[in-house]
């Protein structure tokens, strides 16, 4: 077996998707099974952690089985087991972590604890080559971060949200407009339906800051809804959604481009669940074209939580022989920077 054809099985259970992937050589996805719990959580208006954990334990071996069937490989062919170690909902993480440890022991192969955000970033390696230094714009339900990768596998967070994550703001605004959970895609669609736009504020923060803040914007949307209600006016939902989306995309993409320039990166990587947002993809694509900055965006199936991206990130550790002992601790707040690879002894 060489590094090019080793088989990694990866498990991701950090939130409300139970996912198992089998990936060859760190890049070739043989199976990427995702069992979403969205239908279950919708009636609660958001993810209920205890229910998410219950679903994971009910589903996990079925998803494992399905991944092997899709990949057409046998259990004995697996060379390593990777798993999301954090961050995420602790009860949900634990199901995947314990399953992964058990599987690593059962198959007598190494375990690789993997950072969820490193996974989102390295989803891009499943579709192309990452050129360093690179800047990753991570936008999801739980995260909004600008991550600088000066070299392979080394992560430095240069900007982060100070309050809500982008996806969280989308879901809250969608709820205020009475869309079911998760509401982000409804806002994206609604915003495309009109040319009218309610002008909403942009939080730029300090001039040199790459941080984000979305709570003020969310409040402005709620205030607009209230204002219309008080005056008995019909609310122009499309224009409000468009205004909200315009503000988010303007701030996020402008800061990303500014950071890309400040750090002299050679590539921009968009990732995370909100990277499936059409408005976001289009704007960043045109900005990068204008700046002649290469841009990678994974297809939507690799943007939302999935285990293939975990295998792609775990490949960094596999190639360095950096395995994780079976007494690994899952971390709801696991640090991305500390998860960085620690040496240059890479076999390619």
């Amino acid at each position, binding site marked *: 077996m060489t590094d090019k054809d080793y088989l990694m099985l990866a498990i991701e259970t950090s939130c409300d998707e139970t996912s198992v992937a089998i990936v060859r050589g760190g890049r070739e996805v043989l199976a990427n099974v995702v069992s979403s719990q969205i239908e279950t959580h919708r*009636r*609660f208006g958001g993810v*209920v952690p*205890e*229910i998410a*954990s*219950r679903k994971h*334990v*009910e589903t*996990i*071996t*079925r998803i*494992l*089985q399905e991944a092997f069937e899709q990949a057409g490989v046998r*259990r004995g062919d697996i060379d390593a087991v990777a798993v999301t170690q954090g961050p995420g909902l*602790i*009860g949900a993480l*634990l*199901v995947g*972590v*314990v*399953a992964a*440890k*058990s*599987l*690593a*022991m*059962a*198959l007598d192969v190494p375990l690789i604890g993997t950072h969820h955000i490193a996974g989102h970033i390295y989803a891009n390696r499943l579709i192309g080559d990452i050129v360093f230094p690179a800047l990753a714009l991570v936008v999801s339900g739980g995260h909004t971060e600008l991550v600088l990768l000066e070299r392979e596998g080394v992560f430095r967070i240069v900007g982060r949200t100070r309050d809500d994550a982008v996806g969280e703001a989308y879901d809250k605004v969608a709820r205020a407009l009475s869309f079911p959970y998760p509401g982000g895609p409804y806002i994206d669609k609604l915003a495309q339906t009109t040319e009218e736009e309610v002008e909403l504020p942009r939080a730029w923060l300090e001039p040199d800051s790459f941080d984000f803040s979305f709570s003020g914007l969310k409040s402005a949307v709620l205030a607009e809804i209230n204002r219309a209600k008080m005056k008995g006016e019909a609310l122009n939902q499309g224009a409000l959604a468009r205004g909200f989306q315009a503000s988010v995309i303007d701030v996020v993409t402008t800061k990303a481009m500014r950071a890309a320039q400040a750090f002299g990166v050679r590539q921009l990587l968009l990732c995370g669940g909100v990277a499936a947002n059409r408005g976001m993809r289009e704007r960043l694509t045109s900005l990068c074209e204008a700046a002649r900055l290469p841009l990678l965006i994974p297809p939507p199936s690799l943007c939302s939580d999935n285990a293939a991206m975990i295998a792609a990130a775990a490949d960094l550790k596999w190639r360095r022989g950096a395995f994780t*002992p*079976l*007494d*690994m*601790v*899952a971390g709801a707040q696991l640090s991305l920077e500390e998860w960085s690879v620690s040496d240059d002894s890479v076999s390619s």
Partner: protein
Amino acid sequence: MNGSNRPGTLLAFDTSTGTLAVSLYRDGRVMEASQSFAERNHSVRIVPEIQEMMRRHGVHREDVGAIAVGRGPGSYTGVRIAVSAAKTLAWAWDKPLVGVSSLEALAFGAWLKIRQEASAQERDAWIVPLMDARRGQVYGARFVASAAGRDLGIEEVVAGGAWSRADEDGIRLIADWSAELAAQAKEAGVALWFVGETAPFAALDGAFTLPFAMDGGAIGPLAADRLRRGRADDVHAFAPNYTQMTEAEVKLQAGEARRTP
């Protein structure tokens, strides 16, 4: 009983309480049962503990006849740790999976200790395992241990009916329930034993108490009996027994009930 229907070595574990209990069981005998009390750390230690115990006894995957696991009730997160490990191991190794009630394992382990005490054996006994479920509640059940079972081997006790269940696993208010049981036990002329997490409950009148930590060695004989009866579980469908819905589901149901006239 001949050798052919022996299930091989049972790998048994439970993490429903503060105790990480792991054991190996074979031919009616507990090979080793370990207990560790690293509260809230079961996800860290469970797999190394299993691996080390198998190595100590030279037990390889081919030797494992079945995976036995305590399926709760107990700590939600705790129960999921053992069940996740058990499902994955059973699936990866193609072994039968046998779930046993964590309360029954707790009760049975305690009774194996109780029956060694001469004074405790003359009457039939009700063994009532308790796990603290907070706010005056307990996870509990009731088992009947007949005096006839005092001298039997541990598998014969289970197989021969000297050990049987009388009340299902459930969550109950300890104050009401313990008083009720005491009155019933008195009337029935049986010895009433509260075992397990008895410490938080000061007044358990009319009963004996045995503070007792989960003994993994008690899972083996219970699981072996289920296997003999052909009652192994479906690996994919197997889930913990939480005995109650989540708070979110309870609130949602209450809300729907209010809206429905």
